[in-house]
């Protein structure tokens, strides 16, 4: 259940950027199939923590793209969500993983009450 720790990290990162007094409406996250992160668990932890920290009830929108692989036998590039199947062209399980380990906070959406755009922190 490391999703609770990750939700804490997300709130620290978000608070550094938006400061206080702005309502967080939506958080956009990308989770790869090799990230070891459960989107459902993270959503539960994040929503609970955000409410406890006075950040309202933001939507956590999770995109879960497939991992990109390249077959080491025939060279085909292909995408998977699970790793038990081999290359769709030649069946080989020999492959290089090109992406899929990411857990990225892509963007956030805030209700700034009509104030001009301003970004603090890094």
């Amino acid at each position, binding site marked *: *259940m*490391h999703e609770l*720790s*990750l939700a804490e*990290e*997300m709130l*620290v*990162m978000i608070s550094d*950027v*938006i400061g206080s007094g702005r309502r967080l409406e939506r958080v956009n*996250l990308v989770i790869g*199939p*090799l*990230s*070891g*992160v459960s989107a459902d668990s993270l959503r539960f932890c994040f929503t609970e923590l955000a409410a406890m920290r006075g950040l309202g009830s933001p939507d956590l929108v999770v995109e879960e793209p497939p991992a990109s692989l390249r077959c*080491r036998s025939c060279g085909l590039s292909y995408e998977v969500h699970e*790793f*038990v199947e*081999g290359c769709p062209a030649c069946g080989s*399980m*020999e*492959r*290089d*993983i090109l992406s*899929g*380990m*990411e*857990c*990225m*906070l*892509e*963007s*956030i*959406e*805030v*209700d*700034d009450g009509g104030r001009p*755009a301003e*970004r603090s922190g890094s």
Partner: protein
Amino acid sequence: MKIGLQSPVTGRNDREAARNRAAFRRRGLFVFNLIGSPGTGKTSLLEAMAGEFGDAMAVIEGDVQTRRDADRIEGKGCRAVQIETHGACHLDASMVGRAAEGLFALGGEWKVLAVENVGNLICPSSYDLGENVKIGMLSLAEGDDKVLKYPSIFSRIGMLVTSKIDLLPHMDFDIDRAESECRSLNPGVSCFRVSARTGEGIPGLCSHILSEREKALRV
């Protein structure tokens, strides 16, 4: 208003890990992060490795509770410090950084620092501790089908250690299957078969770690 961030969720941990990595490098330490299920034999493996490395190895032990594992390692002549996570299912870089400072304060010259993670095949995969290599561990008392069930960890390891091979006559575990499935996630992984009980495979594993240390220090 939409604000773009494009930041890894573990960004703060990654920065701590980079600090750890620099501190380990300054001391000439080769650090491995040992990850496996509870009961796979991580502490027994480190006890057996202590017999090879002697006081050239130090150990940071991670457990939810008790300092039993650190006591076991110290009983084999290696310096060990214990992290008790009090419920947390993984070590993170700041915990390891603090434990390493405590270890360094004790004084000593080591070539290898072993970090035994909390017994878990999922959560530790998200956290870089500043190690040179993650070592994934399986034992013959588990299933030989675990690798593709836990791809996040087995795709990140540099070495796979299959332990308890003295049980091979009694078990149906297909070591070739586990190793080839690990290579299917991770073509560069080095595989080792060991028994902490009989000592089989331990010298080869330790000499590989020393040669990896030489390579790492040359870079």
